[in-house]
C-alpha cells in the first residue's frame, strides 16, 4: 500500500503519522494492512509488529467474538460510521493495558480489494474528565437532594411553629374573651342570685312570680353569652359545614368584641341587608369577624365608631367593616395579612389576627381587601360565595 521513494507518498506518510488520531486500514478478513505511528504508539507496538495481524489483537478478549460478527455485518452493509456513535469501546495495548477508545469507520475500495479505514482516538483523558464530571454531577445532585430535604424539613418546621403560634394566638384571644366575658356572666348571675335569695324569704305569690321572671330573663342572658362564647372558643370541634347567616355572625361577634374588649367607648353601628346563607363552619366565620372587629377596636384606641355593613352583591355575600381610627399607612396595606406583621406592642399579640382572618376567608373561597376610607379609618371588605353556589368547595373542605 505504500511506496517508498515517491515524494508525494512520503509527504502523505508524514502527514498520516503526524495525525493526532490513530489510523489503520483493515482488510476484508480483518487483517491489519496499515497503521500510522500514532496508532502504534497508542497500543504500544512498533508499526511493523501490527501489519498482517488480525485486528482483534487490539481488542480485549471478551469483545473478540462480538467483533467478528460486527465485521461480518459491516462487510455486508458497509457505510461510514462516525466517531463516537455512542458505544463505550475499549482497546488493549501490547502490555495488556485496556483503555477507552472512540472508533470511526469508513469503507473504501482499493485495487487489492475492499478495506475499512478505522480512525481511533484514545479517550482515556476525556473519559477521566467525563467520569469526574459525572461524579461531580452526582455529588451535586446529592447535595441538591439533601438541601431540598433540609429545606422541606425547615418548611415543615416553620409550618408547625406557625400552626402552634396560631393556636396560641387563639388561646390568648380566648383568655381575653373569658375574662372579659366574666363580666357578662357575673352581672346577670348576681341578679339571679339576689332574686333567688329574695325568693326564698318571700311569701307573696305575686312577688315570687316577679322574682321568677327576673331569674328566667337573666338566665337566658347568660345562656346567650355562653353560646356566643362557645361558638368562638371551640374552633374545629364541629366538622360539618353549615349554612351560616352572616348577619347573625356579625351580631354575635360584635356583641362579644364590644363586651370583652372594653369597647365601651366605641359605638358599633351594624347595617344589615337580607343576605343568603354562606356555607362554612359558623365558629370560624365568627372568629374571622371577631378578629376584624377587635382589630378595629384596637385601631381606634379610645372613643370612636365602627360601621359594619352586610349585603348581597351578585353571587357574593359581603361584609364591610370600617373604623374611625387613623387608617393604615399606605406602605403597610399590602402587609397587614402577613403572619407576624404587627404595629402593636409586644404584649398585644403575635400579629396573627388578620392572617387568621385571611386563612379563614380564603378557605371558603372568599376574598378579603383592605383600604383606607375617605374619612381616614381602615376599611376591610370580605366576600364569601353564596352557599348554593359552592357545594363543590364545601366538599373539599373537610
Amino acid at each position, binding site marked *: 500500500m505504500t511506496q517508498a521513494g515517491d515524494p508525494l507518498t512520503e509527504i502523505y506518510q508524514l502527514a498520516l503519522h503526524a495525525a493526532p488520531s490513530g489510523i489503520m486500514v483493515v482488510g476484508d478478513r480483518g487483517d491489519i494492512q496499515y497503521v500510522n505511528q500514532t496508532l502504534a504508539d497508542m497500543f504500544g507496538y512498533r508499526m511493523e509488529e501490527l501489519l498482517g495481524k488480525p485486528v482483534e489483537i487490539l481488542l480485549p478478549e471478551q469483545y473478540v467474538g462480538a467483533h467478528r460478527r460486527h465485521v461480518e455485518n459491516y462487510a455486508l452493509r458497509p457505510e461510514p460510521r462516525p466517531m463516537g456513535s455512542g458505544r463505550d469501546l475499549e482497546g488493549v495495548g501490547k502490555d495488556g493495558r485496556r483503555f477507552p477508545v472512540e472508533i470511526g469507520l469508513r469503507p473504501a475500495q482499493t485495487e487489492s480489494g475492499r478495506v475499512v479505514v478505522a480512525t481511533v482516538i484514545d479517550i482515556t483523558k476525556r473519559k477521566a474528565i467525563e467520569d469526574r464530571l459525572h461524579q461531580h454531577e452526582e455529588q451535586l445532585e446529592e447535595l441538591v437532594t439533601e438541601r431540598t430535604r433540609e429545606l422541606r424539613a425547615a418548611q415543615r418546621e416553620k409550618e408547625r411553629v406557625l400552626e402552634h403560634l396560631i393556636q396560641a394566638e387563639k388561646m390568648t384571644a380566648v383568655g381575653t374573651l373569658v375574662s372579659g366575658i366574666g363580666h357578662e356572666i357575673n352581672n346577670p348571675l348576681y341578679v339571679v342570685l339576689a332574686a333567688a335569695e*329574695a325568693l326564698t324569704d318571700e311569701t307573696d305569690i305575686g312577688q315570687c312570680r316577679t322574682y321568677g321572671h327576673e331569674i328566667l330573663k337573666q338566665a337566658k342572658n347568660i345562656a346567650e353569652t355562653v353560646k356566643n362564647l362557645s361558638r368562638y372558643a371551640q374552633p374545629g370541634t364541629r366538622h360539618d359545614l353549615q349554612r351560616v347567616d352572616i348577619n347573625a355572625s356579625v351580631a354575635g361577634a360584635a356583641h362579644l368584641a364590644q363586651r370583652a374588649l372594653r369597647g365601651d*367607648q366605641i359605638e358599633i353601628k351594624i347595617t344589615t341587608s337580607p343576605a343568603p346563607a354562606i356555607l362554612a363552619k359558623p365558629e370560624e366565620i365568627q372568629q374571622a369577624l371577631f378578629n376584624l372587629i377587635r382589630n378595629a377596636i384596637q385601631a381606634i384606641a379610645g372613643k370612636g365608631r365602627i360601621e359594619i355593613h352586610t349585603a348581597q352583591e351578585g353571587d357574593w355575600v359581603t361584609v364591610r367593616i370600617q373604623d374611625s381610627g387613623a387608617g393604615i399607612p399606605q406602605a403597610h396595606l399590602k402587609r397587614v395579612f402577613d403572619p407576624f406583621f404587627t404595629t402593636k406592642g409586644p404584649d398585644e399579640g403575635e400579629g396573627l389576627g388578620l392572617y387568621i382572618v385571611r386563612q379563614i376567608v380564603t378557605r371558603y373561597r372568599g376574598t378579603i381587601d383592605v383600604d383606607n376610607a375617605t374619612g381616614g379609618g381602615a376599611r376591610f371588605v370580605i366576600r364569601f360565595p353564596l352557599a348554593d353556589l359552592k357545594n363543590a368547595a364545601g366538599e373539599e373542605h373537610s
Partner: protein
Amino acid sequence: MKHHVLVLDDEADVRAAIRLQLKGTRFEILEAENVDQAIDLLDDNPISIDVIICDVRMPGKSGVEAVAYFQREYPTTPVIVLTGFPDVTLAVDFMKKKDVVDYLTKPVAKDKLIAAVEQAAQGRKLFE
C-alpha cells in the same frame, strides 16, 4: 337612724339586685348609673352618704377614676368595689392605696354584702 348607701353601677338590673339584698336593713339606697351622676349626688349632699358601692367597668368614666375622685374629695367615705370583672392586679392596687375598704366580686351573697356594708359604715363612724 337611716344610713345612706350610694350604689354606682351602669346596669339597672344590678342596682336593683343590690337594692333587693339590702332591703330590710338600715341602709337606704341612692342610685347612680354613671360616675358623673354619683359625683353630683355626693357634691349635692355630702354628709348623708355613709358608704359607696362602686362598679369598675362602666361606659364613660370608669370605676377606677371614680374611686380616685372619692378618695380625693371624700376621703372619709368608705368605698366598696363590687365588680363582675375580677382583676387581681386592680384589687391589690386598690387595697394598697387604701382607696377602698372592700373588694367584692359579683355574684356576691346577700349576707356577705350586708356584712361588708355594715363594717364599712362602722369603720366610717370610728374614723370620724
